[in-house]
Structure formats: structure tokens, C-alpha cells
């Protein structure tokens, strides 16, 4: 494994950890809706779905 491989893998691991943390946080907060056209929940968060 080259030095470039190591650096790339560390960066990739950090990105993956960041995404997992973000998804976890979203789930914990119950998730917030995007902006589906006509959606009555657009922009609203859903604390009732909190873990």
C-alpha cells in the first residue's frame, strides 16, 4: 500500500464517518422534510419521529 493510498483511505474514511454521523443526527431529530411541491410538511421537522 502506497502513501497516497493511505492518505486517500483516511480521507474516504472521514467522509464516510461524516455521512454516517449526519444520517444518524437526521434520524435522531426525526428528520426534516425537503420541498416536495404541494407538500404540507415541506420545511417542517418531525419531532414525533424522534428516536
Amino acid at each position, binding site marked *: *500500500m*502506497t*502513501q*497516497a*493510498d493511505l492518505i*486517500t*483511505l483516511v480521507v*474516504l474514511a472521514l*467522509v*464516510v464517518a461524516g*455521512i*454516517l454521523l*449526519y*444520517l444518524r443526527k437526521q434520524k435522531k431529530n426525526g428528520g426534516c*422534510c*425537503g*420541498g*416536495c*411541491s*404541494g*407538500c*404540507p*410538511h*415541506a*420545511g*417542517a421537522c*418531525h419531532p414525533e*419521529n424522534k428516536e
Partner: protein
Amino acid sequence: MKSTLALAGNQNCGKTTLFNALTGSNQHVGNFPGVTVEKKEGQILHHKDISLVDLPGIYSLSPYTSEEIVTRDFVLKEHPQGIINIVDATNIERNLYLSLQLMELGIPMVIALNMMDEVRASGNHIDVKCLSQHLGVPVVPISASKGEGISELLKQVVEMVEKQEKPQKLDFCTGPVHRAIHSIAHIVEDHAERAGYPVRFAATKLVEGDQPMIDALQISENEVHIIDHIVQEMESELETDREAALADMRYTYIEGVCAECVFKHQETLEQVRSEKIDRILTHKYFGIPIFLGIMLVVFYLTFSVLGAPMQDFLGTAIDSGVAAFSSFLTDVGVSPWLHSLLIDGVCAGVGSVLSFLPIIVLLFFFLSLLEDSGYMARVAFVMDKLLRKIGLSGRSFVPMLIGFGCSVPAIMATRTLSSDRDRKMTIVLTPFMSCSAKLPIYGMITAAFFPHHAALVMISLYVTGIVVAILSGLLLKNTIFQGDPVPFVMELPAYRMPSAQSVFLHMWEKAKDFLRKAFTIIFMASLAIWFLQSFDWSFNMVADSADSILASIGSLIAPLFAPLGFNDWRASTALITGFTAKESVVSTLTILTGAANDAQLSAILQTIFTPLSAISFLAFTILYMPCVAAFAATRREIGSMKGAVLTAAYQTGAAYLVAMAIYQIGRLIV
């Protein structure tokens, strides 16, 4: 001390627009009744100690619909320090009906008389001072969309919070209704005080026969008998039922006030224009064909005229970026396997989905225009007749319409349906409406097989979803969900010029949502797919992905799809990964085919599918079970895992049968 105010009013009278103007937030606004079904909170601009709660639009404080329950619970249980009651000045009589009920609560109140610009434009006049004197609360003329009168309203709101002056007039009735309310008020005075409810409001609700109020006041059986006797006397004296008697009392008072304060000699220009347009767009026979025609034009503009060049441009930019990144990785000496993971896995997967961003944004631009103009509300009206035939009311059209965007909020929006039967049936049928996450799949297959008929293929796919929903509705209506749908009453808003701010907000929200999904779920799914298609069960890297873990799993399932015309492990694997998010079907097929660009992908897809099996694949994709997020929403709303699994099984079974019928019948013809 921090104060909380409630913003209450009828549906589609501009509550959310006023909420945004007062708080500086950017909540979704739509020219469509029922946009707000949950309460939203924000701080009033320059007054951080006052927060404002945007409540769902309602017509009365009777607890019949979820919107009415949310609003009533808030004003009764949270004890706000004041109410901003927004009243549509162009429909003042109907709007004041709610105002009278809100005043009975004895909470300080300001009336924001909205859309006064439209009243002026039509040459009509409302004497605001006269109205304020008759109602006993401050009335401020405003135009929320143009920002007129907002500073004056803010001044009145701050004064209301500081002075805490309650509405000066609570008694609007005479004769038998007056006697009944007052007699009942004496009986329940102690109960109401103990429960923390205003006596006058409690007495009025008891005259109406409001069961939750009877329960909340804990009235004894004896007292209930006395109240019933008083109400029966009132009914026999007036020769009408209790609810009609109260409605009549309120409207008589409103008519009196309007006769003195409202000078109306003609309908507003918007109303006249809307009636003329409605004669065509909501026509008994032409309404649905016109809707289909409009959608065909929208798809043609989205997928052919405007979308295709924009998608090509973005695709080329992504390819150039990936090529530069690939050269960089080679130059710094990254090993081939890691190079493959990043380029053939992550970049190919995420990039293939990202290139559809312009299509998604464009489609939602057009849908926002239609919605903001007020046309989508007409579609719900036109669809009511059709929906009633399959055992649903027109109200179910709102969640179904939302389903064209995303199934998750659509399934959640079924909460607004008052009948449990209608709600469950709508949850089962809504995922048949093609959600926007499936667009990249349609785009990918259409580009490979039907590049010159994109709009026609798109509208056919959407129609297929609708037709299957109709047939399923007929089947369910006569089997599991027997019974009649609840009546549907919906207010048709006036046609308005869509607001640029609202339309661009919709587009931005949609783009943000799409990008968030591409760089989270699709990113992770691409990593997993690359790993599974690059290694065998002994975790040795394979030269040919046909020897990989994924191939062995996919090959097990692939024969199931042979009757549907695509007995290929890559296609079956893509359908399985579509369970995480529908866009994953595209990223999976791109990774598994090893295509470097769209042209290569199209060429390889032509070796996996024939045009007929491509149609069958598309049909299966539209109809089979929705993604994991929608499945979770179904489980939550239906209330059981068994119900959610049965729903998903029904949807997948229907998808299989329809796709098989298309392929097998198509083979006989072609």
C-alpha cells in the same frame, strides 16, 4: 417575559405568507387549501420575546378534522397571550365565522384583514373602523403578499401583548339561542373554570353537542340531561337542529355587521377572471383531458426541449471533473483497486444520479407554477368524480398529488383524511403515483431506447401508475375497504400570478433534497455496490464482476424476472438496491455495467434489455414497493408492521403482474 401568539384563519387566506412576513422565515407557501397541517413556530422580527405559531387553516373550532384538532388544542391548552386572526377580505362573511368563535375564547385578538389590495382593485370598500367597533377587537387592513400594512399590524400586535385587552364583545345572539347559551353557561361555569376553559366558549360548544368538550368538563349524567333538555327546547322553538341554530346565529350577526361596514357592489376582478377560466379548466368532460394535455406539455419541456440540453451540459461537466480526478489519482500513485473504488464506484454512482438534477429542478419549476397559480386545486375538484368511482373522495387527491413528489410526505399527509377507511386505502394507492426519485430511472432507460419520444414515454408511465391505482381502488373498494367515501368539500382559491419567490423556494428545496440524497445515501450505496461487485465470497478481487458476491446473489433472483423479460443479474440487483432509494437503480446499473459515460451506458443497456423488456422494467419500477423511508412511513401511519408488509407485498405483486402482462402481450404483438 416571552409571549406566544397564535396565527389562525381559514384555509388559503394567506396565513403562511403573513407568518413569513412577520417572522422573516421562508416556510412553504402554496395557493392550495391545506398547505399547513402542522403548527410551525417563529420569532417576530425585531421582537425576539414574541414567538408566533402558524396554525393550520380551519373554518370552525369543532374537532372534526386533524387541522381543527391541532388548532383547537393549541389555543385551548397552550394558552397563547394573543391571537392574530387573519381574515380574507374578499371572502369576509365566511372568514368572520371563525373570528366569532375565536373571540369567544376570551383571548386578546387582532384581526389582520388580508387581501385588501384586491378589494380596492375591484372598487369595493370595507370600513375598517366600523368593523373594529362592531367586533370589539382591533382590525388592521393588510396585503401580506405585497407587504402592505405589516408595520401597522406589528404595532397593534405589540400593543395587544403589552395591554392584554380581551375582545370586548362576546354575545352575538338573541332569542332562543341566547337563552340556551346563558342557561348552560350557568350550569357549567364551575366545570369550565376547573378545566381552564372560557365559560362562554364551553357553553357554546355544549349547545353544539361537542363530545370532547363534554368529556373535558367532566359533566355529570344529570347535568348532561338538563343541557340536552335546554337544547331540545331551543331546537323546537327554532324548528332547526342545534348546529344549524348556532351557525344561523353567527351568520345573522355577520350579515348585520357586513351590511353596515362592507360596501360591495361587484365581485373582485380575480373572482370574475377565475370563474371565466374555471368554465374551461373544470369542464365536466374536458377537465381531465386538459389536465393530461398540460402535463404532456410540462413533460415535453422538461425532458426534451429544456431538460435534455441542460442534462447533457451537466453530464459533460461531471465527466470532465471525473476525468481530471482520475488523472490526479493516477499521478499521485494511488493503487488500481482504490482508483477503481473512487472512479468506477463512487464517482460513477453519484455522478450518474447527479446528472439528472436539471430534470428534477425543471419539473418542480413547472409543478410549482401550476400549484401557485391555483390550478392544482382545480385538478383535485376535477378528480373528485373519478376518485369517488374508485371509492375515495377528492380529498385523497392531495396526498396523491404530493406522491408525485415523494411518497413519504404523501403517506404522512393522509392524516388529514377524517375517515380511517379512506386513509388506509390512500396509503396503499399513493405509492403508485410515480415519485420524483424514479425520474432518473425513466431518464436513463428512455435515453437508451426511446430518445425521440421521451415526453410520450414519461406521460405513459405516469398514466400507467394512475390506471393501476384506479384498478386497485376498484378491487379494494369491493373487497377489503368496503363502504362509502366521506363527502369532499374544498374551497377553490382564485387564480393568481405565481410568486417568483415561492417558485424558486420550491426549486431550491427540491435541489437541496436531491443533492443531500446523492451525497449521502447514493454515496454509501455506491461504495457497497462496488465492494460487492469487486470481490468474491473469499474476499478476493475478481477480474470479471460476473464472478462477484453481487452476481451470485443477483443470479439467484434473476430467473424470477424471466417472465418479465429481463433475466439479467444486474437488472435484478438494481431493483433490490432501489429499496434504499429509487435513484440507486441508476447508480447500481452504472457501476455494474462499468459505463464511463451516458453513451456507453445506453449501449450496454441495449444488450441487457430489448425495447419491450425495457418497458416492462419501467412498469415494474413505477409500481413495485417504495423505498425504505416510505415503507417506514407506511408502518407508522398504518400502525402495524404486518399491515406495512402486506401493503408492500400487494404493490410488488401488482408490479409483477402488470410488467409480466406488458411483456407477454407485447411479445405476441411485436
